[in-house]
């Protein structure tokens, strides 16, 4: 009986985890002009790899952090690239005239402040950072 209880608890945890939104040490934030409230992880990747410039019908521009734990977590969880590869990717586009370099900021506070005041901006901060003035997107 005890083993059955353990089995059901474990199964419940697995089901619970699968129903959660995309879990990460970062949260994705957007300017209030962005109409989407929830997005897919694929959409986030497409925005930051410059394959997509709109979410829910609103034009968006990605904003990066220059480094730190939130930056590393975002690269690993969403983009599948390390920082050197991401910089090389952007530079290959910038130096062939195909894109502009996304804005890059030094801290969670700077990212939040920039996203709050910039129409269409989408960024990421650590999960515990204050997000006053911006909306947090639910990533499925």
């Amino acid at each position, binding site marked *: 009986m005890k083993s059955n209880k353990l089995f059901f608890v474990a199964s419940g945890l697995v089901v619970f985890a699968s129903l959660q939104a995309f879990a990460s040490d970062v949260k994705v934030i957007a300017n209030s002009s962005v109409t989407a409230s929830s997005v897919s992880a694929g959409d986030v990747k497409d925005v930051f790899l410059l*394959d997509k*410039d709109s979410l829910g019908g609103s*034009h968006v521009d990605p904003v990066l952090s220059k480094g730190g734990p939130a930056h590393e977590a975002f690269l690993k969880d969403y983009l*599948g690239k390390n920082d050197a*590869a991401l910089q090389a990717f952007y530079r*290959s586009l*910038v*130096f062939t*005239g195909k894109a*502009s370099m996304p804005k890059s900021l030094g801290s969670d506070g700077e990212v939040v402040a920039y996203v709050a005041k910039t129409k269409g901006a989408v960024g990421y901060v650590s999960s515990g950072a204050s997000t006053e003035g911006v909306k947090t997107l639910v990533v499925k």
Partner: protein
Amino acid sequence: MRQVIGRLMAGGMLAALALSMALQAQDFKLFDRTVQTHGFGSQGFVYSSGNNWLTMDTRDGSVHMTDVGLNMSSAITDKFRAGAQVYDHNLGQLGQWHPQLDWASLDFRAKPWLGFRGGKVKTTLGLFTDTQDLDFLRTSALLPQSVYPIDMRDANIAHSGGDVYGRVPLAHGVGKLDYTVWSGHRNDSMHGGYAYFLQYHGTLENSYGGLQYGGDVRWETPVKGLLVGVSRLDEDLIGIGTRAGLPNVEKTKKDFSNQFFGQYIHRSLELNSEFKRQYRDHILRNGTAEDQGNLHAWYVAGSYRIVKRVSAGGYYSHYTATSTFNKILDTSLPNGHVYDKAISGRVDINRFWNVKVEGHFMDGYALASFPEGFYPQQNPTFAPTTKGLVLKTGFNF
């Protein structure tokens, strides 16, 4: 005078490096639009034993390997952007500090799957044609010369014309397709490798270029990090110059290239491989001669980022070419091939500045329809093998 200019450029590059570290990429506003500026440069030292290489006197050691580029661009609207880049370089007897408009384009991306680009546009052909000058993107100091000969960069690096391009998600989760279809005019610098090569054969070119058109399709596969693709290039060229003081014309009868490529990236590991086949049939000397040439080139390359600022890599580059006019028909002979084994190391001093060291072990000197790094002007007699050392430093901002 050109040496003075060269020294000034090198000094300017060092100053730009210092400035770049201080300023980073600069944005400014113009008519309420943000304009970004970015730049890059590199300086190399090359030493070789066997043959002199890349039009430099490398058997004595040469520092005549410098390039710089500067661009400005702006997103005019959400879907429309404009920009331009100037480029200047010296590679031995090539380049000679004649600045060029590297690219200048208007780009309208109507949808993710449909965009239009026009002006002087970098050509999407294989993995690295459009980025071959951007040394800071790679571990290696030189790209595999079988497919990306630095002395022949003018051949296909850019075209004056237009592209239609896009990225299409495929159904059932089988990845994405990127496509580019393009057409334009090629216009070679008279300080490029082919014009310099022809001088040895008594021809002074005043112009060389013509129509180029082609396409590129690449598949970002469902296997994470795996990309495969194919490119095609056709061209119809004309060279106008003089030979022994009399007018001389060279024209294309048929000239096409097929290029197949694959790339795999997993964390710090990157593997690349390409195969290129070019068939070239040109009418020479005002129609009195014909040259049919077959080029087969391929390479396999790998690099690994060992720690955050140190990476290592290597490649094997294989090039064979025949020429009926020059009677190069047996590619097993040194004048019909270049086989190159290269090993590289890179250290990033900071995010703007890198240093590279690279060794090359080359067999052959391929002298078919056009050069492959080895020129008769620097090599009155050719050695069958060449060893080369390349030291290079570069910056970008």
